[in-house]
């Protein structure tokens, strides 16, 4: 929603274009490098002889007859059954995002509209909760989970991820609801709506920018989590990240690093397609508030 009335001086356009390009290079270069390298063998991608090998791939040529190989992908997806983890990650992220946002919008709305002192203290408590390092929390879960025989399953992990993500979701959505004018829902209530109806009819239609942004972060949390998923899931239910970690090997065992590299790339490419496909919705989601502001 730029204002057509003002034109930018060329120097500023140059500066800002240059900055965007610079930022994009910094942000995307390591990933593009990884994507290119995922079609090479380990000896090239992690070559000490010459980093140019990661681009040209002499060892890959020697071993496979061409500068590109699908070895890493085949190893990860077929041999190591990475697809199972992709499905698990899909399930976990879908439910974590949905549940987090449902609980978070309800709670965040209540916190933004209530004027009693305790709302402040709830928000403060949520902050303190968030300060707790996850490693400690997870170590504490193990014994009770084993005793209740709920360790290792996806629903357990989903609930834990929702819970430890809740302080952040509450805070973020609370801030967004604060920026939505009170008159909106209060007018609805004057018209005879209950609080929940007002929320549904007056607030839900305008809350999407906040929800989309918060959803994005919930998604990233669930998608990238290692601490919780590696400790709470058994082998068959592993999500992508702990599965990847298994490819990396350990001190006493040789890893299959290229499997991990291929797996990372193949995990991100669908996201790219998804974002390109939904970019209008995402950008307009992020922009929707402008009209109401």
């Amino acid at each position, binding site marked *: 929603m730029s204002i057509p009335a003002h034109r930018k001086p060329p120097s500023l356009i140059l500066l800002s274009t240059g900055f965007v390009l610079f930022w994009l290079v910094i942000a995307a270069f390591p990933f593009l490098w990884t994507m290119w390298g995922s079609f090479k063998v380990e000896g090239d991608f992690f070559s*000490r002889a010459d980093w140019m090998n990661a681009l040209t791939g002499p060892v890959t040529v020697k071993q496979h007859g061409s500068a590109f190989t699908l070895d890493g992908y085949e190893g990860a997806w077929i041999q190591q059954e990475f697809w199972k983890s992709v499905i698990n990650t899909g399930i976990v992220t879908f439910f974590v995002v949905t549940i987090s946002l449902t609980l978070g919008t309800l709670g965040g709305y209540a916190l933004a509209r209530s004027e009693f002192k305790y709302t402040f203290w709830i928000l403060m408590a949520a902050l303190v909760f968030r300060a707790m390092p996850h490693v400690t929390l997870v170590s504490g879960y193990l014994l009770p989970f084993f005793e209740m025989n709920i360790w290792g399953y996806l629903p357990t992990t989903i609930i834990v991820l929702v819970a430890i993500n809740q302080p952040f979701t509450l805070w973020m959505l609370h801030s967004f609801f604060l920026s939505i004018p009170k008159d909106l829902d209060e007018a609805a209530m004057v018209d005879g709506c209950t609080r929940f109806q007002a929320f549904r009819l007056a607030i839900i239609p305008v809350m999407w920018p906040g929800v989309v942004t918060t959803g994005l972060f919930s998604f990233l949390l669930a998608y990238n989590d290692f601490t919780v998923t590696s400790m709470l899931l058994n082998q068959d239910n592993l999500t992508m990240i702990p599965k990847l970690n298994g490819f990396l090997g350990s001190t006493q065992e040789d890893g299959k690093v290229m499997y991990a590299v291929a797996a990372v790339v193949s995990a991100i490419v669908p996201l790219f397609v998804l974002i390109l496909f939904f970019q209008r919705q995402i950008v307009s989601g992020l922009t929707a508030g402008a009209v109401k502001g």
Partner: protein
Amino acid sequence: MTTFFKTSVAAIALMASASLANADCGIEKGSVRILSNDFTALRVIADWAEKCATGSVTVTRNQTQEHKNIQTPALTTNPASYTVAMVASNSIVPLLNDDLIRPLDDLVAKYGQQLNDSQKIVVDGKIMAIAFMANSQQLFYRDDILAEHGLTPPTTYAEFFAAAEKLRAAGVMATPVSSNFKPGWNVAAEFVNTYLGTGADFFAPGTAALALDHDAAVEVLDNMKTMTEYMSADWATYDSNAQKPVWEAGEAALSIAWGSIAGSYIAEDNPSPEIAKHTSFAAAPTIGDHGIPAVALWWDGFTIAKNISDEDAEASFRAMMNGISGDMLAENQEAAVWLIDGYEPSKTSAGVLANLQGGARPYPMLPYMGLLHTALGDNLAEFLQGKESADQALADTAAAYNTAAKEAGFLN
């Protein structure tokens, strides 16, 4: 097309059922639930244990690198979440300390005829675990480069450093040495290795009181410091994964590394076939005039949980006997340095076996060794970087160990 499709599906199904042919392990009933680390040798064993599955015997497994962190809570519950926990010299200790695994004497007498005496891990007169493979660090060397400069594979650290110095002086390599010196678990393992080579003990006999032989410890630290001088400036980031490319780039000719990864150094698909062809293995060097390979010997084995029914314990033990059977060995000779009868040593196991014959000492299976390992891992880097004295590093280690041992109830 459809008939072709059908026949090929049938063929595949046939093949699959043939390869999964259930061995008759003679188990009548029971549930076998295996928890282990995740690497080739253990996967093979679990595969073979799974062959015992029948209509009334279920075999499941969870192979994860986090096994060490989940084994204690998982075996504490009653019934335990797993019946079999595969462990190593160090990871059995928490299970012993918390009394979570059962003595296996009866089961060994009944079903363990295939076992050597050396496979039985005896604690306080009772068999608590069955070992099936050995591991240790060893010397990796480039036979072509050493021969070219008239050097023989070093058997002592004095020779080791002389060879390194010669290679450096000849301009062959600026940093001919590499080893796992990353702070934390790795650097502590190197200290333990070298210290064991001095013949000294870590603790006062019968107690948890730290009693490092001061002279020996300083000798070990100085030895490690000398190593860093022949290593790349990045040594503080070297673990197994970081070391291997250095070797493959031809930047090192002498290395102390794990026997279990030796195979990948000489594998056919190695990116530098020339270097791979001339990579050889030998016992770790000895330190000073002690004549003991400066290295700790490790074993991997399995234990059976305490909090399970006798029926499940029996089923588990017999399934694992199939897991480490001679038939398994025959198909997987190369997967590890097996302790199982009928194992034929190969090129990669030369170093580990030479360590064994040279009288190298085992990694101490003491209840408080893990605390010392952690304390060492956190406090040696500053000395090696030249930021503090050996005495200060040892004092810091002792302080960290004492604090931890007090908290764990070993010291007052």
